[in-house]
């Protein structure tokens, strides 16, 4: 089981470009359709849990499926398989990158790439705001969060903790007032 999960995730990890979300359809095809390790419904529950829990979605899903399919050995196999390809590739790049960067051609290319990367980070915000069904009032949350981090240099960790605490307190108070009235 260790090797089967390791191999499956190694394949998925090697051939998905563009981060965790891009991995999900491939995981579904391998794990649900081809291997039949878990069924469709459990897979959808798994995605919900992997997204709700902190951490990387690809890793979270590897842990869940590894555990359901093969216990501890399954977890080790799936996580190693998911992490190893990017680990090796980036390590190799890190080892040579500082020398490559000195090359005029590479430096020129990166001058063009840097603003493109900032755009690639910023542009999906439009779609995310739409999917989250953001209103003028709820837009205050991301706007104040962004300003606090950007101008106030507040660590995002505090913003996340504040979101959780404020939400829980608000619901608690609201429930208490409705119960009292």
């Amino acid at each position: 089981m260790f090797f089967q999960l390791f191999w499956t995730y190694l394949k998925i990890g090697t051939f998905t470009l563009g981060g965790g979300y891009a991995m999900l359809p491939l995981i579904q095809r391998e794990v649900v359709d081809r291997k039949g390790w878990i069924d469709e419904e459990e897979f959808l529950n798994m995605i919900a849990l992997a997204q709700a829990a902190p951490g990387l979605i690809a890793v979270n899903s590897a842990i869940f499926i590894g555990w359901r399919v093969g216990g501890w050995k399954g977890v080790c196999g799936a996580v190693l398989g998911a992490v190893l390809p990017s680990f090796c590739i980036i390590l190799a790049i890190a080892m040579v990158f500082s020398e490559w960067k000195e090359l005029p051609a590479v430096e020129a290319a990166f001058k063009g790439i840097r603003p493109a990367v900032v755009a690639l980070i910023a542009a999906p915000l439009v779609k995310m705001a739409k999917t989250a069904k953001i209103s003028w009032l709820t837009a205050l949350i991301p706007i104040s969060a962004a300003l606090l981090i950007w101008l106030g240099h507040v660590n995002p960790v505090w913003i996340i903790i504040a979101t959780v605490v404020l939400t829980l307190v608000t619901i608690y108070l609201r429930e208490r007032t409705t119960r009292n009235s």
Partner: protein
Amino acid sequence: MLYLQLFISFFKIGLFGFGGGLAILSLIQMEVEQHGWMSQQEFVDIVAVSQVTPGPIGINCATYVGYTATGSVWGSVLTTFAIVLPSLIIMLAVCKAYFWLNRRFQGNPYFEQTLRMLRFTVIGLIAAAALMLIKPANFIDSTSWIIFAAVAFFTVLPNLYQNKVTKIISHPILLIIIAGIAGYCIYG
């Protein structure tokens, strides 16, 4: 000491990284900047490399910082392990309590409302990551802004006109390659 600091930083990133790849960027940025492990420019470069190589951005950044900060492969092993460890602890707890959790948390207003609010916060975190990168080091002249506008335009385009052409054009790998070629032609 350096190894301990790296471990704590990446453990924190793994523990508070809600909402996937892009949302985790502002956390990583804050940590590496505070400790001086990476310059803003290096950070953008590694995000670019992450977009065109396989695997989650969080793992890519962890591996890269681990190596460059320590100069050793073990630094990479440590940071990658540190970012995965919170996931391991939390997800295994989730798996063990799967049926109990499903019954207890589905439709629970505290749980669902918190997730909804976190989704809004995450949008702010991603916006902050982008805003923090708008600096002279990354935007060297007016051409940079043209590249920025063009890439943003093509990325948003499939939301307005959904067809095969806009879908291919909006692919981040293609856009990065084109931006690289443009950079080479303009600045090279």
